[in-house]
């Protein structure tokens, strides 16, 4: 009898575990190599110099005293597990982003760098 019960429980676990697993990755590519920023000097480099080094920005924002050029790259990693009665889906999106600030004469005043795209990971939503 115990044997039948064990078999039943084993089969139940097997049935509940039936399903599929999905791992997905999506990259919005924009080459952002931090070493490319080294020749850029605040107070000397111009918007044209930046575009020559980094290419066209993802976004240009008009500010009160000039403009900001935004370079953005994103990586999304998704995980999905579908079992018989339950499913778990998780997605994590992280960005590499460089924002460069220019004055009204298109002279670079400051820039900020965040490199988090590599931190995107697969996982569960709990």
């Amino acid at each position, binding site marked *: 009898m115990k044997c039948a019960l064990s078999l039943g429980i084993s089969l139940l676990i*097997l049935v509940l575990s039936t399903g599929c697993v999905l791992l997905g990755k999506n990259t919005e590519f924009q080459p952002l190599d931090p070493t490319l920023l080294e020749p850029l000097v605040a107070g000397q480099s111009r918007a044209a110099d930046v575009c020559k080094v980094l290419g066209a920005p993802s976004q240009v924002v008009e500010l009160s005293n000039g403009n900001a050029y935004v370079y953005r790259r994103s990586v999304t990693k998704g995980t999905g597990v579908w079992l018989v009665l339950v*499913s*778990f889906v998780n997605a*994590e999106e*992280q960005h590499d*982003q460089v924002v460069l600030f220019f004055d009204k004469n298109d002279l670079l005043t400051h820039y*900020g760098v965040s490199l988090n795209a590599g931190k995107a990971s697969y996982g569960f*939503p709990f």
Partner: protein
Amino acid sequence: MASRSRLLAAPAFFLMPLLLSGCITYQLLGGVEGGEVSYPSDRLVVGKTTLGEVLVLLGAPAKVGRVDEGDLLIYQRAVLKRNKLSVGIPLADIWHLGIDLSAYGALVRYDRLVLIFTREGILSGAAFEKGSDHPYWKAITSDS
């Protein structure tokens, strides 16, 4: 007799999920966008800290924009959680009629730091909210 009913109960026990599949489903969905957002209040001094210092300290913001009195930087992280429970009898293919009851709750919580700068690039205001600290069930069941 009792052992016979037990023998019948065991296969029924593991067949139930198969019979119920498609009728009862529970889905848990989660998502995160953006890195951790913190507010180093001791290093961000209104009227003193400059835009350049903030960029060195916190890196590139998620968003930049212009406001009346100057510019603003937004550092943001979004955390999504969604629960969905569906109960239904998928008879639509047979009777063109089916019963389907589902309940779901989705909640996006934001950790957000907003910094406002004067035209000269001096910090003039700061606001921080750590939305991810709010408990999911409490937030989703509250009326406000």
